[in-house]
């Protein structure tokens, strides 16, 4: 018996210093690692975005050459999707799901730590070619855009190979993390936490994990084939050997389109918790949302070629992909109805998380509706290569996931730290973000309708005024995030008022039955629901 007690004590007293974080098997530590890494990468991706807008502020090559511009837009895309948004989302699931379902930890804790520690190497591999260039190796990092279309990616420099290995590490990380999440939810729910009671956020992540397992292998396979085409003489993507460059585009978007939902679903899940808390009403349409998630998950894997309307597919294929894409707007529309139903006639208050949640609905709504325009195969011929697409997916991905991540950050920061953040600074952050974001991206819709081509470092003089506006908006948007960082910093050092266990008076859920911050280990004895 005595050995057992020592074990138990060791588990309570985790190691200090760097080894705590390197060796950890604790879901809260790993969650914090994911979130911290994700926000660090948001800063990296954000700086790259600022550089892009600095270059595009005026016509002509002002800040950098086109080669570097191409590299910066490629890394900006990959970093924001894979190294910033996905890790923050995975961090939230790690921190929250065991507490939400009354589990002692994630089901496979060592694997959990491995999933996280695969991310920094992937990020290193992406930016390493810039460093190697100083030593005369290669010509910088990948410059093909984040979509890495063949045959450009077959001919591109050594940076592409580093990106391929980075993609493989990301694949491994996401797959293992998804397996862990599914096993945790399947096996470690507290007694009474039945499938019709688990929080919406958990449901959203169950769907996300299934999607990741189903679609990421296609990109991993394609990346391996790209490596073979580049260096081992195969002709997967080369018509010279009977292959087809479009195969890459198919495989990329078979992964890439569901990836949008992989980014979106977790924040759609957390959104409804926040709406319900600040409207002081139960979630409206629980079942409708769960079925909508499932419908989105299923439909999202059969619509990928709406990214390929201009690539010369047969008309019948274009028509099929047009209608299946439009069909997704039905479950997404149901989600919107449930969000409105949740706040309908509630006694709403507008703390910062609620502001970001409402901002999410507005901005993602615009993103979704412009998506309907692009899903029209005929209309897309006009918009496809133009800035309209850039504006659309930034409304979708910043308006949805990023606003959702910020809402969740304010919502759970008091829970994590035991301190309230500064509400005034939070409101400044929200309004400057809203204004900055719309000033940045709304002009891009207009530029796109006027025909400004995307992916190019320079543009015709007639586009100058709107680009100037867009760049100024981007700098406001970037500066606004500094307020957020400062607000988080002052909360972490204990400047705010102490938070209660429940934090918000409308908050529901097992995680709010625990003190703030929660102890290192929670629910070692499962609660009864």
């Amino acid at each position, binding site marked *: 018996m005595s050995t*057992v007690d020592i074990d*138990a004590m*060791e588990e309570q007293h*985790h*190691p200090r210093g760097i*080894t705590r974080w*390197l060796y*950890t*098997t604790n879901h809260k530590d790993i969650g914090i690692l994911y979130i911290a890494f994700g926000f660090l990468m948001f800063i990296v991706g954000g700086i790259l975005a600022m550089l892009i807008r600095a270059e595009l502020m005026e016509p002509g090559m002002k800040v950098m050459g086109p080669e570097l511009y191409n590299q910066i837009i490629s890394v900006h895309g990959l970093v924001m999707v894979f190294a910033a948004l996905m890790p923050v989302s995975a961090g939230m699931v790690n921190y929250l799901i065991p507490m939400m379902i009354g589990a*002692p930890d994630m*089901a*496979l*804790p*060592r*694997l959990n*730590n*491995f999933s996280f*520690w*695969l991310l*920094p*190497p992937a990020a290193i*591999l992406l930016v390493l070619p810039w460093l190697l260039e100083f030593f005369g190796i*290669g010509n910088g990092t990948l410059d093909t855009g984040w979509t890495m279309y063949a045959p450009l990616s077959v001919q591109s420099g050594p940076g592409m*190979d580093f990106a391929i*290995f980075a993609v493989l*590490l990301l694949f491994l990380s996401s797959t293992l993390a998804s*397996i*862990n999440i*599914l*096993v945790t939810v*399947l*096996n*470690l729910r507290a007694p009474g936490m039945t499938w019709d009671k688990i929080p919406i956020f958990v449901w959203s992540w169950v769907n996300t994990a299934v999607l990741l*397992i189903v679609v990421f*292998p*296609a990109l991993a*396979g394609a990346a*391996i*084939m790209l*490596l*073979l085409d*580049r*260096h081992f*003489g*195969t*002709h*997967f993507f080369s*018509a*010279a*050997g*009977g*292959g*087809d460059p*479009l*195969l890459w585009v198919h*495989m990329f978007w*078979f992964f890439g389109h569901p990836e949008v939902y992989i980014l979106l679903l977790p924040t759609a899940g957390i959104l409804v918790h926040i709406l319900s808390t600040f409207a002081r009403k139960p979630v409206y349409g629980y079942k409708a949302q769960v079925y909508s998630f499932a419908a989105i998950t299923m439909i999202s894997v059969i619509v990928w070629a709406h990214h390929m309307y201009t690539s010369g597919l047969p008309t019948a294929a274009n028509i099929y992909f047009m209608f299946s894409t439009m069909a997704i707007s039905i479950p997404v529309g149901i989600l919107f109805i449930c969000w409105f139903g949740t706040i309908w006639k509630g006694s709403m208050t507008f703390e910062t998380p609620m502001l970001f949640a409402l901002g999410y609905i507005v901005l993602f709504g615009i993103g979704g509706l412009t998506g309907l325009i692009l899903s029209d195969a005929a209309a897309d011929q006009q918009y496809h290569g133009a800035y309209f697409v850039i504006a659309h997916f930034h409304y979708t991905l910043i308006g949805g996931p990023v606003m959702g991540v910020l809402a969740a950050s304010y919502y759970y920061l008091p829970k994590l730290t035991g301190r309230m953040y500064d509400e005034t600074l939070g409101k400044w952050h929200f309004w400057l973000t809203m204004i900055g974001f719309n000033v940045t991206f709304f002009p891009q819709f207009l530029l796109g309708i006027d025909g400004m081509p995307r992916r190019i470092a320079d543009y015709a003089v007639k586009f100058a005024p709107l680009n100037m506006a867009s760049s100024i908006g981007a700098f406001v948007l970037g500066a606004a995030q500094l307020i957020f960082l400062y607000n988080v910093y002052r909360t972490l050092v204990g400047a705010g008022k102490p938070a209660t266990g429940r934090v918000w008076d409308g908050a529901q859920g097992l995680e709010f039955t625990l003190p703030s911050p929660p102890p290192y*280990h929670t629910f*070692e*004895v499962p609660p009864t629901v």
Partner: protein
Amino acid sequence: MSISQAHGGHYYLPKPSPYPALMSTALLLLGAGGALAVNGYVLPAGWLAGAGGLLVVYVLSGWVGDVIRENRRGVYGEKEGVSFRWGMGWFIASEVIFFSSLFGVLFYERNIAVPWLASLNSHYSPWAGFKAVWPTSGPAGAAFTPEHAWGIPALNTLILLSSGVTVTWGLQQITKGHRRAATWAVGATILLGGVFLALQCREFYLAYTELHLTLGSGVYGATFFILTGFHGLHVTIGMIMLSVIFGRCLKGHFGPDNHFGFEAVSWYWHFVDVVWLMLFIFVYWL
């Protein structure tokens, strides 16, 4: 005994472990080494990948060793066992999808890309006389001979299916408590897997030297080698796992109620089996 009682009902949470972070360091070294190697920086790549490879071996033995020791201490109860089963199940599901995407590539190249190319004005053909046939000829019409399904590949099908039988029989013996018979069965499975791999290597060698079927033989060669190559890689991984199981059988680690390690590997081996059947049908035969 005392340990499992003390944990009574508590889910086992492993202590902090250095292995996950070390493993990702190893994969970083392998990735950087790989990217440098394919660009001709062989020497630095060799050092990086060599260090990474050694680290992988060290970590795997340490990590798997930890899991085995925890199992021997009896810290895993029913609940932990269910996690391992679900985990292995989803892992195999992700592998199935990976191979499905490779088969998707085969069907796309064979049934869409090649006929599409052939339907174009001959001016755009990759080479003179390009036709919508499978196997295609190589780039610029270089001739190669595809492998015959009913030679070595058919024999290999028989060998791999037999190994599926031996591993299943071994599992049955474990559940009945016949440890010796189970050990023999695992040994036989490893032997059959080894013969399969040796024959595959011989096939690849002959393909390169006599049939002139190479990675560069157009989409036929590319899809042929990526499918059979990845299958061979998975057989190799399965062989390593079986060897661990063989060692554990010799040490008497498994009993009628405690053999999930064995069972998981048998699941994996059956998955490798089924992939081969698909390969035999769609790559070699049809």
